[in-house]
């Protein structure tokens, strides 16, 4: 990215792609939840994420000003053009894996949406204020399950502890700072990702303490999602998500 970098487009893609990919992953739970209520819960959360993704990607398309709408951006970009955090594309695994992934994301989304609610850009602020209500509700759900699984049986505790050990290193992308976020912060329309780490850590530590879970020893954090470097899981997801509109680009239903 050189002097012609469109920071607003890049930044909005990150917001949109996080919501889109996480929403798609949650959608894969349809019909597979451990109980009916959780099947409905995970897909409802996925629906909220897709709704947020539509709003962010529509705005990203406007910022790019090249005629791409939400659908063009969602269905006609390749893996390397996606800007989502790698955390969002981690496999659903078992229910505990999905809950930990969701909790780590929700604990980030709440302060993110709070910060963006005072964006100097009224369109960004409007979407953030709307999303803030949803992310608070999602966190309530994922936190409750962190407690139930962590403080549940020996098996649920061990499984969710392992999920945490596996997924925590992927939180790196959430707080990744570069020229895009520097411009977003300096101009007042975006949030400084490094400032989101403190409230995220507070939420994480208090939840782990209440759930009887241990914070795994620090390991180097994985980053790359914001620059289009992804794990192989994303390509499987995109293949399934994009095949229909790419095969029949003008399909209507």
């Amino acid at each position, binding site marked *: 990215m050189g002097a012609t970098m469109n920071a607003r487009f890049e930044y909005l893609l990150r917001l949109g792609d996080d919501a889109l990919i996480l929403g798609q992953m949650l959608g894969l739970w349809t019909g597979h939840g451990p109980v009916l209520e959780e099947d409905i819960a995970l897909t*409802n959360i996925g629906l909220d994420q897709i709704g947020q993704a539509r709003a962010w990607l529509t705005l990203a398309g406007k910022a790019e000003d090249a005629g791409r709408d939400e659908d063009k951006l969602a269905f006609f970009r390749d893996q390397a053009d996606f800007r989502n955090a790698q955390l969002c594309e981690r496999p659903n695994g078992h229910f505990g894996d999905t809950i930990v992934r969701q909790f780590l994301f929700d604990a980030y989304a709440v302060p993110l949406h709070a910060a963006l609610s005072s964006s100097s850009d009224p369109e960004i602020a409007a979407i953030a204020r709307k999303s803030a209500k949803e992310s*608070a509700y999602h966190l309530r759900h994922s936190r409750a399950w962190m407690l139930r699984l962590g403080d549940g049986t020996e098996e649920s505790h061990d499984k969710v502890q392992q999920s945490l050990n596996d997924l925590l290193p992927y939180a790196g992308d959430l707080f990744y700072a570069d020229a895009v976020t520097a411009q977003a912060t300096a101009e007042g329309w975006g949030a400084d990702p490094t400032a989101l780490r403190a409230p995220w850590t507070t939420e994480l530590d208090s939840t782990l303490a209440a759930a009887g879970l241990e914070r795994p020893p620090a390991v180097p954090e994985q980053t790359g999602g914001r620059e289009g470097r992804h794990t192989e899981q994303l390509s499987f997801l995109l293949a399934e998500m994009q095949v229909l509109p790419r095969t029949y680009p003008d399909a209507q239903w």
Partner: protein
Amino acid sequence: MVTRSADDWLAVLQQIPDPEIPVLNIVEMGIVRGVECTDSAVLVKITPTYMGCPAMDAITDDIKAALTPLAREENRTMTVELVYAPAWTTDWLTVAALDKLEAYGIAPPGKTTDKRALNGEAPEVACPKCKSAHTTLVSLFGSTACKSHYRCNDCAEPFDHFKCI
């Protein structure tokens, strides 16, 4: 030729039921945020209850189906615009709408000064059937994006509660 005013258009919009909760119309739901008229155009602004509410497309289609022929009679164009600000809140449901919800079997939201639900505390939700406050939250998520699922401990009625946001 009649030229309808914004209030006239609002009256037409009040005839359109919410596709998921047909006991309420889209104005009572707080989804219609305003009607703007010029000599040549009618603009209806709507806002979603939840960002991903899949009913928004159906609502947009319903509005167009009801208003476009009337607008055409007046040589006006008709457009529907989706707006996100201000964010929808359950406070926009009228008192009459809350009563209709309850009669329909959906426990209505309290006033949002009660933010307990958002903070993770259990709000008091009365059974729409027997009015008992002795109820249990079954799931934070219910049959649509805007509802959660409860059970009455006294009359055993399972019911939806309109989430309070």
